[in-house]
C-alpha cells in the first residue's frame, strides 16, 4: 500500500486511516521518554516548503521529522527567489537537485501540492492547500477524538464556523465520516455550503442535535475577499461559544476542539480555554505523533 504522497483524506480508505492512527500511538508514547527519538528516517532529508505563514504546523512537522532522525531543511520562501517571481514549477526543479526525500508543502492555492507531487519523485505531504485539504490536521483530530472516544462509530461531531473557506472542515469531516462518525456543519448561511452533511445555521438548534464534540473553526479572514457576516461582535453572539453556551456544553459533557490559531471573542470566549474538556492542547501534542506516522508510512521514489 505504501504511498508516495500524502495529499488528501478523500483518497485514503478506512483501513489506511486506522493503520496511520494505530501507528501514531507508539510515536506518542515516545514523547514521555528521556530520549524522544527513533532512527526511522536516519539519513533522509525533509524539506519544508511553506508558501503561507504558519508556526504551529511548520514546527510540528519539524519536530516530527527530527524525532524520526531525518535532516530537516526549511526553505525560506519569504527570502527566496519566489519573491522575485519564480514559478513554483521552477522552484521545484531547483529543489530537486538537492535530492530531498520528503517535501512538506503549504500553499495558498488549492491543488498546488498535487501539482508538485506529479513533478517530483520525492514524497509530497500536503500541509494545507487553499481551501482544499489539510490531511495531517484531520489525522491528528481523529487521533485526539479517538483518545477520548475509543469507539468512534455513531459519535456525533458538530463542525462550527467558516465551513466554506476551511480546508480543515473538508479534511476533518471526511476522515470522521470514513471512521463512522456523524458530522454536521453549522455557521452563518453565507459560510455553510450545502453538502451531504447535516447543515445548521442556528447554533442552539445544532446543540439540540446532541453532538459529542464541537469543533470550532477560526474565521478565515484572509480567505474572505468580501464580508460574509456583518461583524465579529455579531458573529460571537450568534455563532460563538459564549459563556452561556459554554455552560450548556459543560453540563452536557461535550468536548471542544479547535485547529488554532484561535480568535478570542469571535468563535470562542476566553473561558473555553480553561474548560476541562477542551482538547486544544492535546491536538497540538498529537499533531507531532500523527505527522511522524505519516512521514514514516510514505515511500519516496528518489533512490
Amino acid at each position, binding site marked *: 500500500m505504501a504511498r508516495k504522497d500524502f495529499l488528501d483524506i*478523500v483518497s485514503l480508505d478506512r483501513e489506511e486511516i486506522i493503520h496511520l492512527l494505530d501507528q501514531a500511538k507508539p510515536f506518542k508514547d515516545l514523547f514521555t521518554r528521556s530520549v524522544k527519538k527513533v532512527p526511522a528516517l536516519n539519513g533522509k532529508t525533509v524539506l519544508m516548503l511553506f508558501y503561507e505563514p504558519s508556526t504551529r504546523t511548520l514546527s510540528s512537522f519539524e519536530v516530527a521529522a527530527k524525532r524520526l532522525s531525518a535532516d530537516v531543511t526549511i526553505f525560506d520562501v519569504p527570502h527566496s527567489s519566489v519573491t522575485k517571481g519564480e*514559478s*513554483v*514549477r521552477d522552484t521545484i526543479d531547483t529543489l530537486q537537485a538537492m535530492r530531498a526525500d520528503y517535501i512538506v508543502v503549504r*500553499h495558498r*492555492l*488549492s*491543488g*498546488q501540492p*498535487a*501539482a508538485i507531487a506529479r*513533478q517530483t519523485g520525492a514524497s509530497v505531504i500536503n500541509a494545507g*492547500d*487553499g*481551501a*482544499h*485539504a489539510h490531511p495531517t490536521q484531520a489525522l491528528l483530530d481523529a487521533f485526539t477524538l479517538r483518545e477520548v472516544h475509543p469507539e468512534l462509530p455513531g459519535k456525533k461531531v458538530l463542525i462550527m464556523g467558516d465551513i*466554506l473557506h476551511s*480546508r480543515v472542515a*473538508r479534511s476533518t469531516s471526511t476522515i470522521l465520516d470514513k471512521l463512522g462518525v456523524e458530522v454536521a456543519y453549522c455557521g452563518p448561511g453565507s459560510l455553510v*455550503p450545502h*453538502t451531504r452533511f447535516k447543515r445548521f445555521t442556528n447554533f442552539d438548534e445544532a446543540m439540540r442535535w446532541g453532538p459529542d464534540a464541537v469543533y470550532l473553526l477560526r474565521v478565515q479572514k484572509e480567505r474572505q*475577499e468580501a464580508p460574509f457576516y456583518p461583524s465579529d461582535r455579531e458573529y460571537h453572539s450568534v455563532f460563538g461559544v459564549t459563556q452561556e453556551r459554554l455552560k450548556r456544553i459543560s453540563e452536557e459533557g461535550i468536548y471542544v476542539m479547535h485547529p488554532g490559531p484561535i480568535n478570542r471573542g469571535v468563535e470562542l470566549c476566553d473561558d473555553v480555554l480553561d474548560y476541562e474538556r477542551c482538547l486544544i492542547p492535546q491536538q497540538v501534542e498529537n499533531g507531532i505523533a500523527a505527522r511522524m506516522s505519516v512521514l514514516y508510512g510514505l515511500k519516496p521514489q528518489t533512490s
Partner: protein
Amino acid sequence: MNLFLKGGDVATEDNAPTRADVWIVDGTIKAVSVMDAPEGARVIDCAGAVIMPGMFDAHVHFREPGQEQKETILDGSEAAINGGITGVVMMPNTAPSIDSAAVVNRVMEIGRKCRIPILTSGCITVGREGKEMAPIAGMKDAGVLMLTDDGDAVPDAALLKRAMEYGKEFDMFFASHCEDPQLAGLRALNEGPVSYRLGIQGTPALAEEICMDRDIRIAHATGAHLHIQHVSSKIGMETIRWWKEKGAHVTAEVAPHHLMFRAEDIGDYDTHYKMNPPLRTAEDNVALLEGLKEGVFDLIATDHAPHTEFEKSQAFVDAPNGLVGLDHALISLYDRFVANGDFGWELLVKRYSAEPRRMMRLDVAEVAEGKPADLIVFDPNKATTVSKEFMKSKSSNTPFLDKTVKGSVEMVVLGDEILLER
C-alpha cells in the same frame, strides 16, 4: 485541377447524406451526381465517406499579436484545416487588443498568408478595458463586422448601450461573453459540489445568465443584433429561447466541450478541463444538446484557446482558462453525437458550416453544381488519435490529447487547392 470524388455520400444542411460523386474542375464544382469518372480526372475513392462543405468556426483565439508562444495565426489556420475547417473568426483579446483599424489591418495582412480565409472581430472598448468605446467605424472599414470584448463582459451597461446604438448604424453586430464579474469571482470552475471538494471558489451559472439577460435586453432595446458566445448552462439556453420567442435579434453559439464534459471531469485538478465559462453539470449537457437540436443555438464554435504546457501545468487556480479545439472539434462531434445517433450530419453542416457563414454575411459553402469548391471528405470508418504529432496547433491543451476518436478528415479542398490529403 480535375478531381473526381467517387463513391461517397454528400451531406447538406437540409438532408442526410445521399450517394453522389463530386467532380471538381479548376476550383469549381462541375457536377454532383452518380456518374462515371470523367476522362483525365484524378479519381479519389470516397466509398463509405461523407463529402460535406468545409466547416466554419466563428470563435477562435489565435494569440497573435502578443502571445505567439501559444499560437500564431498561421499555426491556428493549419489546425483548422487539419480539422476540416475552412474559415475562422478571430477574437480580439490579443496583446495589444484588436481594437483599432491599425491592428485589424496587421492581423488581416498576416491572415492573407494563410490558406483559408481569416476574419477577425474587433473590440467594443479600447483595450477591452470597458471604459472608452473603440474606434468602431475605422474597424468596419478595415473589414470587421463583429464587435466583442470576448474574455470579459462590458461591465458598464450604459457604455454597452451607447456602443450598440452607435455601432449598429455602421451595420456591425455585437457578440457577448456573458459574465457578471463580481459573481464570477475567481473564474476557475463551476460553483457546486466539485468546487467545494477542491476548495476553490466557484463561479455560479447565474453569473453568466444575469449578464446574458442584461445584454439581450440592451440589444433588444437598441435594435442591435447580438450574438451570445459559448452558452454553458440550461437556464442560459432557456433565456435565449425565451428572447427568440419574443422576437429579439439574437443568435447564440454552443461549444463542443460544453456539450461533452462536466465539472466532475476535472477530477483531481486536471487543468485540461479548466475553461471559462466553466464546465457545469450533466443536466446542463443535456439541455445544451436539446437547445442545439431545437435551433436555440444557431451555431457551434470551439472557443479554440491555446495555452502552453507550462501554463497548464500550474496549480488549478493559476492555470489559464481554455482548451484548443480546431484540430479535433469535428471528429469529436462525430464521435460523441453523430455516431451515437444524437443528431445527424445535416445538423453539423447547418450549425458548423452554413449558419456561422450566414452570421458573418459570407456565401454559404455548398457541395452543389456550379459552386466554388469548399469541401471536405470525412471518413467515419477510420479513427484519429489526437496526439501532439497529429495536432497542428502550437498548443495541445485538450482533454482529447492522446485519445482516439472515431472519424477522420481525409481531404480538404478549397478553391483550386487541395489543402489536406491524408
